[in-house]
């Protein structure tokens, strides 16, 4: 899959997290996923169909049932390599037949879990009965595989002959061992063994062959006589016949596998698609997602939209998450105090757009989102220059290089999320650059939202202005709090609602108050407040 976003954008917008959440659980699903490409402008019909399928499955099956089905899918081994070799004329190995048996069993479990109305509209792969029948003699307990006598009478005969020949050889060898024992050799072992000279008979009996001599011992082995050698040769011939009969069984099973391969490969493809679909449906069920309307212009609207990576992190710490609602036409600016949710708002937009691009319903109560062929994150955390050039550039330089890269390959429809772009240069020049960027995005017909602390940007660029996060007076704290309680205190004083405002609605950043709430040295905070109020601090 060629992603319409950079690695940095994926990180910033939680797309990496989303991809992990909707990752297929099986090897066949992972292969199916690799063959997919994201939906882009022009793919609206296909995207709508996929979103509807995912939503229908999520609603009708429910999270618990989908979880059980995913576990069943995860247990399905990938038989593709064995199928390819069987079709190519190879004689498969016993491990291949064992794995094919496991595949058919596991597929049967998937079919059992995917019964009912919830799956009526989905084509479910079916186990191949002919191959299951062909393998059955080797799967007496229904789980293992062995080239059993039941496959072929000739194999049973060959094994019987081998057992008889082995008994004959063991008997011939035992006679030699008995003669050696009678001659005073107490313990004749398989292979080489040691006799101590001071206890061994002299001379050694003819049944014992010396391999190596030493002053105090001899290394020796049993010497086979003609009878034993003939018995050994007969045993080797019988074992060769067994090997041939076993291989004949494998050839027949390999041909049966090759015959079943087209249908099995289709089953593999269907199972991969099912894995991909179920993974998305499980996500949609877990996060109470909604099927978005697909806008065909530069309009994006979200109601009660959530950014699940942040929502889950907050909930895990016992804190509330405030969803956002937003109606964005073209390009806009969002302002607000530090820690008020500006960046989270940008991430929520990027996440929602990525969901639609990937055919996943959106975690919101309503969503109208266009398909985009690029999601670009600029500003804090944006893609900088290549690693080898990175040390050559300042933070500002890296932002500019990232913007240049975005502008050099214009997308048909892009969503641009600019997080405090140009914040590291002088406020006046930074503001000028941001205004120019927003104008350029508007001209290009992009969707864009820029978070900034700089005043007057929306008005100067003639774009909509949203505000998020209004900080009430922080309640007094008894000394510096640990980080957790400090964050809770700030959250209690913050209104995270996102509203459209005129320019006068843009408030202070609240940076000094927040620095105090986060436990920064009180004297330093007091001095900062004093400087803020001083006439020298006013911009000319």
């Amino acid at each position: 899959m060629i992603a319409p976003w950079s690695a940095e954008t994926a990180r910033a917008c939680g797309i990496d997290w989303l991809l992990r959440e909707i990752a297929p659980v099986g090897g066949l699903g992972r292969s199916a996923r690799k063959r997919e490409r994201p939906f882009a402008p022009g793919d609206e019909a296909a995207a709508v169909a996929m979103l509807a399928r995912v939503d229908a499955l999520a609603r009708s099956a429910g999270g618990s049932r989908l979880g059980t089905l995913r576990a069943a899918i995860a247990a399905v081994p990938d038989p593709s390599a064995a199928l390819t070799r069987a079709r190519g004329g190879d004689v498969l190995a016993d491990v291949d037949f064992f794995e094919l048996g496991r595949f058919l069993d596991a597929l049967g479990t998937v079919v059992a879990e995917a019964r009912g109305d919830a799956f009526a509209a989905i084509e479910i792969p079916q186990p191949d009965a002919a191959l299951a029948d062909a393998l059955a003699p080797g799967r007496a307990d229904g789980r293992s595989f062995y080239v059993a006598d039941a496959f072929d009478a000739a194999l049973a005969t060959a094994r019987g002959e081998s057992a008889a020949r082995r008994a004959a050889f063991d008997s011939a060898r035992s006679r030699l061992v008995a003669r050696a024992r009678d001659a005073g050799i107490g313990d004749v072992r398989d292979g080489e063994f040691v006799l101590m000279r001071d206890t061994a008979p002299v001379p050694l009996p003819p049944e014992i062959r010396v391999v190596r001599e030493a002053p105090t011992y001899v290394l020796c082995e049993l010497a086979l006589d003609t009878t034993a050698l003939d018995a050994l040769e007969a045993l080797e011939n019988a074992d060769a016949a067994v090997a041939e009969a076993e291989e004949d069984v494998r050839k027949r099973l390999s041909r049966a596998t090759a015959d079943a391969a087209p249908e099995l490969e289709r089953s593999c493809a269907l199972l991969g698609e099912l894995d991909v679909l179920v993974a998305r449906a499980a996500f949609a069920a877990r996060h109470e997602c909604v099927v978005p309307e697909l806008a065909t212009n530069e309009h994006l609207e979200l109601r009660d939209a959530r950014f699940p990576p942040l929502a889950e992190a907050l909930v895990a710490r016992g804190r509330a998450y405030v969803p956002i609602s937003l109606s964005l036409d073209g390009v806009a600016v969002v302002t607000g105090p530090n820690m008020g949710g500006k960046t989270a708002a940008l991430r929520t937009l990027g996440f929602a757009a990525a969901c639609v691009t990937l055919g996943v319903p959106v975690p919101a109560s309503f969503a109208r989102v266009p398909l985009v062929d690029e999601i670009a994150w600029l500003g804090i955390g944006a893609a900088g220059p290549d690693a080898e050039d990175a040390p050559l550039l300042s933070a500002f330089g890296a932002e500019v290089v990232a913007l240049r890269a975005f502008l050099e390959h214009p997308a048909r429809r892009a969503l641009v999320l600019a997080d405090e772009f140009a914040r590291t240069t002088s406020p006046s020049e930074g503001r000028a650059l941001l205004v120019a960027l927003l104008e350029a995005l508007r001209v290009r017909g992009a969707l864009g939202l820029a978070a900034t602390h700089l005043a007057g940007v929306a008005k100067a660029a003639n774009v909509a202005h949203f505000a998020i996060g209004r900080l009430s007076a922080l309640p007094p704290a008894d000394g510096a709090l640990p980080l957790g309680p400090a964050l809770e205190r700030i959250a209690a004083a913050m209104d995270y609602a996102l509203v459209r405002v005129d320019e006068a609605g843009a408030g202070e950043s609240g940076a000094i108050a927040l620095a105090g709430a986060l436990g920064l040295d009180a004297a330093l905070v007091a001095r900062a407040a004093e400087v803020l109020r001083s006439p020298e601090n006013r911009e000319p």
Partner: protein
Amino acid sequence: MGTSKNAGKTVVTAALARALGDAGTSFGLCSIGRDGEAFDALEGGSKPRFALRAGASIATAATLVPRSPAVEIYAATAERSALGPIVLARVRAPGHFEIAGPPSAEALRRVAHALGETTEFTLVDGAVDRLAALRGEDAIVVAVGAHAAPTLEHAVDDVTALVRRLQLPLVDDDDRDAVRVGGALTAAMAAEFVRAGEKRAVVVADATHVAFGGKTFLTLASRLDLRCERALHPIACTVAPFSWARAFEPRAFARAVAERTRLPVFDVYAGTVAEARAV
């Protein structure tokens, strides 16, 4: 486990397998992943092959499952060796079988556990750096051979040092003064403890965290109170008194190992047992 390569582990393992078979005890056989596996596969070098009778279970790489005599494959594992995924199989007819295991101690532990679910006894053809795969109650047989040491005395020192490492006593739970070594205890660290006249117990996690052996270990360990948090249980030694390079007098070798290690010593080539004389 052996003091070195060619210490006779494979012969000992085969002898144990034969003895278990004679006693009618069901058993499984698995192995560590050998460093030489890839080399062996590419260069055709010899790999250990175990003569096993019907009924034995093995854990080995799928690519090493023999075509004849056919075995009954009864489980797939999630572990991999350098030669591919590891499967569990049951021997159905006598033959020689190649065994390859996973490369990590954790994975080896899981494979041994899987084998043990259907057998009474599990044999692990192991190595000292995979001791972490053992549970506390597992027994260790230490193999030493003539191949690895230039003289009999040298070989006896090596095996004695290894047995002493494996026999490190447990630290007392209430020993608050003990010096706990976070990672591996090296020879240099141990020498520094000796130089500093350290009288407190010096504690490692287990024998795998002592990164030196031989005479150096015997010398330094005799001057320190070395202890561990996880005890291991060496129960016997075996000797392989000859190799293509040299040979030791079998009875003298076995006797010397028994005297120094105070463990029963088996010579599976001579079929003899040596015990240390009572002190």
